């Protein structure tokens, strides 16, 4: 699985031996239409994760900023992963108020199925 580099955004992927795809977001996600860039990359990621019957961890602790269109792409990713029964965790920095607000709001998508989790570092 290749890293994503687009404009000011980089997502670096590291795969653990037990199939956890750890994706670290860096920089800024400030494109006009982030889903256009993120969706095809998420699809590749899901295909790779599916082959290994792995799971995904999205790490946002190092990202400086993302726009609301990026949040839309993340909501769609949560939905897609749940449909594909792929475990997805989003990890954020609770000491940053903007990250706390953005990610705590996504708890609306947490269910008892253990498929989507929010964690802070």
């Amino acid at each position, binding site marked *: 699985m290749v890293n994503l580099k687009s404009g*000011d955004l980089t997502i670096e992927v590291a795969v653990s031996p037990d199939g956890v795809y750890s994706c670290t977001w860096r920089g*800024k996600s*400030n494109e*006009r239409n982030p889903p256009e860039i993120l969706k095809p990359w998420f699809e590749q990621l899901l295909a790779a994760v599916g082959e290994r019957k792995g799971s995904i961890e999205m790490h946002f602790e190092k990202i400086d*900023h993302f*726009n*609301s*269109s990026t*949040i*839309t792409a993340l*909501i*769609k990713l*949560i*939905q897609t992963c749940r449909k594909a029964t792929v475990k997805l965790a989003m990890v954020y920095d609770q000491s*940053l*108020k*903007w990250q706390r*607000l*953005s990610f705590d*709001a*996504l708890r*609306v*998508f947490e269910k008892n199925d253990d498929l989507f989790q929010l964690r802070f570092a």
Partner: protein
Amino acid sequence: MSKFDDFGFSIDLTVRNEWRNIDLLRTSVQNCFIAVFADLDGCHAIAMVTGELLENALKYGDWTNADRAMFRLRVEGRDPNIQVSVQNPLKPDDVHATTLTKQIEWLASFPTPEAAYRARMLQIAQDDEEGTPSRLGLARIAFEGNCRISAKIENGTVNVTALLMREPT
């Protein structure tokens, strides 16, 4: 007397409607406010509000007339609240004008901005149509920025204002 009474601040710029200018302005506003306030979280909120308003202006403004390919950003502070306004061309009969007005009314119909934001996220999750504008930005401004949002459409321009209600530090 609050320490904010000693000074106010004002940024007023007319800027070309280029997408890359959004991040230049967003980070400039953030850096200016970091120089004024010690509250880094508050500065990030002001910058986020600025960025989201500018993105909406570029996405939904009427940019068909090359002579009017500019928008105006104003950021003003008066003890302890901060007002961010973005003005851009928009025809009053444009679908985006109607959508904007309806969305502000919709946000105001919720008991809290957080409830509106969560409701909008759930709507987005249920929406299967590809490429539909999410229009999450205003709800994010209201919730994460703790803002009151208003809009005035007249003479072919729209002026969207977000009033951030900061707590005195």
